[in-house]
């Protein structure tokens, strides 16, 4: 099922022509923003020089700090009378980032969400419980308007009062829910305590936090839903930027609305399909707050092959933040890649620590400490040595890097609540 078949399945040549036209419109719009006028002049880039999509690489990047410096309305490209909505990012560090929307933006944005929800089979016959914060956070109203656009019956449930949420699902025959994966886990627990099997629920949309395939299986089992990953960020409207289709293998990013690049976060050089790097997006239809080459800080890669569903190119599920990236002997390593390898080995516990040192001849050395699970200890040293060898091999395949693996006693590694500090970089400065 398509919401906007024309744009969702557009052939490459036609898509590129549309992207180029929209890129040039965006370049015109950013002329209304002082920051961009100054930046483009300083960089010596003139809008007329952008003649092909590849020319986008001649444009400077926009960083999160740039947006902060424009607080509150410095990045608005339209007069305030044309801004009909304002959202802000959470602003965990310093001032929040303010994002504005024109009426056209709200229409584009809800259209993208309508594509996502239609893609996973939701229609006007569905009852949708939107269990996220409805305030300044983009996730709430974003999905609200998208679901209404499809004609779904929308419950703006918000967060909290979980028992009432379970009752609403059961009493109103809710078929689809949107929430964070951690809230979904809590909801499952409360429903189990209440003796409800959430019989009507069939579709779960989970976003705003990274979640693993193991979490997906658990949520699908416990809630009785098919679980879909939703990606977005406020600077690019909010949720709706990329979304999983029923294949549950990578996310479709809407290329007619977002020009996508994957770059090496250190050098800024473009990376090809299959290469993991930072997602950089130039939104192509944003009116109130156009951006050029926005560095999301999120790590993903473009898939090399097409999706059986017929939509345009996918990106991989997100595997970490640029801020977490380590550079070991010139190779980019994300702690999430290590976690992924370890999670796939049943003999190894959930906890791990990574130590980075500068060893002999100034070479970077990475040591990973893992706990072996009690029930896998046979008592034989040889079995442990084989396991250690197997972990080293799996890590080398995933990271393309030789690492040291230390097996440590169960329970000896630090346990973290909330944000974990699993990486200790002891290299100091050269």
């Amino acid at each position, binding site marked *: 099922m398509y919401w906007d078949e024309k744009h969702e399945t557009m052939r490459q040549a036609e898509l590129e022509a549309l992207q180029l036209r929209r890129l040039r419109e965006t370049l015109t719009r950013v002329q209304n923003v002082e920051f961009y006028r100054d930046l483009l002049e300083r960089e010596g880039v003139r809008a007329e020089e952008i003649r092909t999509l590849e020319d986008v690489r001649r444009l400077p990047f926009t960083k999160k700090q740039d947006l902060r410096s424009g607080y509150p309305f410095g990045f608005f490209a339209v007069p305030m009378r044309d801004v009909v909505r304002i959202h802000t990012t959470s602003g965990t560090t310093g001032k929040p980032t303010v994002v504005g929307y024109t009426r056209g933006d709200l229409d584009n944005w809800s259209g993208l969400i309508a594509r996502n929800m239609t893609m996973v089979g939701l229609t006007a016959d569905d009852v949708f419980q939107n269990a996220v914060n409805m305030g300044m956070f983009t996730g709430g109203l974003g999905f609200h308007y998208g679901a209404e656009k499809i004609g779904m019956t929308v419950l703006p449930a918000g967060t909290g009062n979980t028992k009432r949420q379970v009752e609403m699902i059961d009493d109103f025959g809710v078929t689809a829910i949107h929430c964070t994966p951690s809230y979904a886990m809590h909801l499952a627990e409360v429903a189990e305590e209440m003796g409800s099997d959430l019989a009507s629920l069939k579709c779960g949309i989970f976003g705003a936090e990274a979640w693993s395939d193991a979490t997906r299986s658990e949520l699908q089992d416990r809630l009785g839903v098919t679980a879909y990953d939703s990606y977005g960020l406020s600077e690019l409207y909010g949720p709706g930027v990329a979304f999983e289709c029923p294949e549950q293998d990578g996310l479709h990013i809407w290329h007619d609305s977002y020009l996508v690049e994957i770059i090496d976060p250190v050098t800024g050089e473009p990376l090809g399909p299959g290469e993991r790097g930072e997602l950089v997006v130039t939104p192509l239809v944003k009116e109130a707050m156009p951006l050029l080459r926005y560095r999301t800080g999120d790590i993903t890669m473009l898939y090399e092959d097409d999706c059986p569903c017929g939509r345009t190119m996918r990106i991989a599920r997100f595997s970490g933040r640029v801020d977490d990236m380590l550079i070991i002997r010139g190779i980019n390593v994300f702690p999430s890649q290590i976690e992924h390898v370890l999670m796939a080995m049943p003999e190894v516990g959930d906890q791990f620590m990574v130590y980075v040192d500068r060893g002999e001849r100034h070479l970077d050395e990475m040591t990973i400490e893992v706990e072996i699970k*009690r029930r896998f200890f046979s*008592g034989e*040293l*040889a079995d442990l040595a084989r396991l*250690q060898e197997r972990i080293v091999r799996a890590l080398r395949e995933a990271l393309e890097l030789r690492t040291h693996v230390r*097996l440590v*006693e169960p329970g*000896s590694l630090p346990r973290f609540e909330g944000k974990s500090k699993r990486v200790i970089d002891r290299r100091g400065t050269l």
Partner: protein
Amino acid sequence: MAADDYIIRQISVFSENRPGRLAAIAHALEEECVNIFAFSIAEASGFGVVRALVDHPDRAYERLTSEGFNVAFTDVIAVRMRDEPGGLFEIANLLGEAGVNIEYSYAYSGLDGGVLILRVDRPEDAIAAIRGAGKELIASSAFA
């Protein structure tokens, strides 16, 4: 006696290779009044396995596990050997000729001679070969 009676439960303790770990194991056993007949340490990179024959293996297992150690039981056999040149050769050769592989081994020498503790790939065959050659195996009841 049946072959089973000669299978002895050795306790194997996973331990990181850092100061104080052996002392922690030994102290826990002392507090449980568990006596160690024999022990050895096998080490790999950064970790090791402490192997011990004790008089109360279950008590040792419980206590060490409750202290967070990863403990497993491993089946071994113990052979009395002559405490003089050629004693070890006699046993090792016997097993070699029977096609039994020794995975690891350690020994202690007491007042009544030497004892060789063996972890082998085929314990039943090892027991048959040793008994067939008239050598004395120590029954597991001697360690409990």
